[in-house]
């Protein structure tokens, strides 16, 4: 059958058009909020004002399209709820990711002020061991912020002693070290609520932690949940803009799978005969 010998480059071209065109001409597909995104939203929404919270940037530019929109939406939500956002990074380039979000978000949120309700403590090597050390003495782990200034100069951190002083931790995670380390130490050892933002590839591995034991208090997985969170906080960002393209691409791939299977079975029947 001719169909089974189609040049794969036609498929690449169709995917490129399927993803590219909806970005230029949005189709306006409806977006519904899933319980996963709602869980994360509810935890942040119900946390009291002036509480310290950690947003850990455990990714680099390779995972930016999926995790960056989550970072924007979550920090926007936390600042609106008057939480004091402390950014950390278990990945070396995570610190730059946090800086980029801060500078872009500051343009639309004048109330976001470095050192008053937002601080970037930068990258620390060590993964799980670093989080364990945060449970003993946070000030010893982070004596300075990412710019090299002593944390004693920031009054927002006066009450910060250990990780237990934080209302919740959000790990935007692209792999190891990342969300799993926060679950194992921050939640299972120190009892701090942990929320996750994971790439779609790693989301199935984290789903079992959203359980009765509340090892994870909420999980955003991939671009779809990022778009849902943008919807919840009323910020149309890159995730929302990308959802039409994502949907068209998924429909195309489903069509390819169906056609491929039909062709396979027809061919199989022919060979058998």
């Amino acid at each position, binding site marked *: 059958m001719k169909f089974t010998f189609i040049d794969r*480059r036609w498929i*690449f071209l169709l*995917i*490129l058009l399927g*993803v*590219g065109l909806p*970005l*230029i001409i949005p189709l306006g597909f409806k977006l519904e909020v899933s319980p996963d995104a709602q869980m994360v939203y509810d935890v942040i929404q119900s946390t009291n004002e002036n509480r310290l919270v950690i947003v850990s940037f455990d990714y680099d530019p*390779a995972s*930016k*399209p*999926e995790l960056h929109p989550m970072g924007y939406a979550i920090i926007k939500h936390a600042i609106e709820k008057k939480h004091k956002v402390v950014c950390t990074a278990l990945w*070396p380039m995570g610190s730059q990711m946090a800086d980029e979000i801060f500078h872009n978000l500051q343009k639309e949120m004048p109330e976001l002020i470095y050192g008053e309700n937002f601080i970037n403590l930068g*990258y620390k*090597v060590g993964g*799980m*061991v670093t989080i*364990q050390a945060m449970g003993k003495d946070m000030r010893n782990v982070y004596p300075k912020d990412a710019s090299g200034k002593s944390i004693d100069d920031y009054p927002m951190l006066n009450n910060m002693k250990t990780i237990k002083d934080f209302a919740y931790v959000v790990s935007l995670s692209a792999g190891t070290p990342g969300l799993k380390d926060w*679950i*194992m*130490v921050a939640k*299972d*050892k120190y009892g701090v609520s942990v929320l996750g933002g994971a*790439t*779609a*590839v790693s*989301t*199935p591995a984290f789903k*079992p932690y959203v*359980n*009765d*034991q509340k*090892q994870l208090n909420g999980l955003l*997985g*991939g*671009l*779809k949940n990022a778009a849902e969170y943008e919807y919840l906080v009323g910020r149309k960002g*890159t995730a929302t*803009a*990308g959802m039409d*393209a*994502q949907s068209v*691409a*998924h429909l195309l*791939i489903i069509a390819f799978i169906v056609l491929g299977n039909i062709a396979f079975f027809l061919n199989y029947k022919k060979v058998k005969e």
Partner: protein
Amino acid sequence: MINLWTSVGIWLGALSTLAIWSFLYKDNPFYKIAEQIFVGVSAAYWLVYTIYNILIPNLFSKLIADPKGNWVYYIPGVLGLMMVLRVIPKFEKASFYPLSLLIGTTAGISLLRFLKSDVLAQTTATMLNPFANANIAVMIGQIIIIIGTITGLIYFYFSKKHQGFVGVNARIGIIFLMISFGASFGYTVMARISLLIGRLQFLFGDWLHLIK
């Protein structure tokens, strides 16, 4: 107004993206150039990053500031040097000691954490009473969790031949496994398409200004 260097960066990013994508048509010199540049720049970036963000703040600055008070930092310093000796075949064995220390401590630290989070907490999370729920959807979900966990474990029980009762449960287990593989594949597709969307948003937005 975008400054000159930002424009240069955007053009370099856009042309590199197109060069890498050109491999989808067929292997060509543009792809090879972009690939080699990526490998070289990555290696140089990580070397400089490691020196300035790990070695200097965590080791050198502490030893320079107070060599006597921070004497304990000589230990990781020496262990690090021993690890680097790997590149000299004559002293290669010196790297075995820091390596064994690293493996031993990592295993020790991880064992307790994995035991608690992945074994005890996960097992406890499957010890459910589904009939205690008023919500029928939650009840069905919990029954599926229990059946999926038990039959999945039976599939991985190899001390008895998969026949009869064990065989039936192992077959149910493999159905659950197949569904989970399918879900993982779906998520992987979503992830890869998301990356393509990210690149196209850069090309259409930052480079060509076709979208806001």
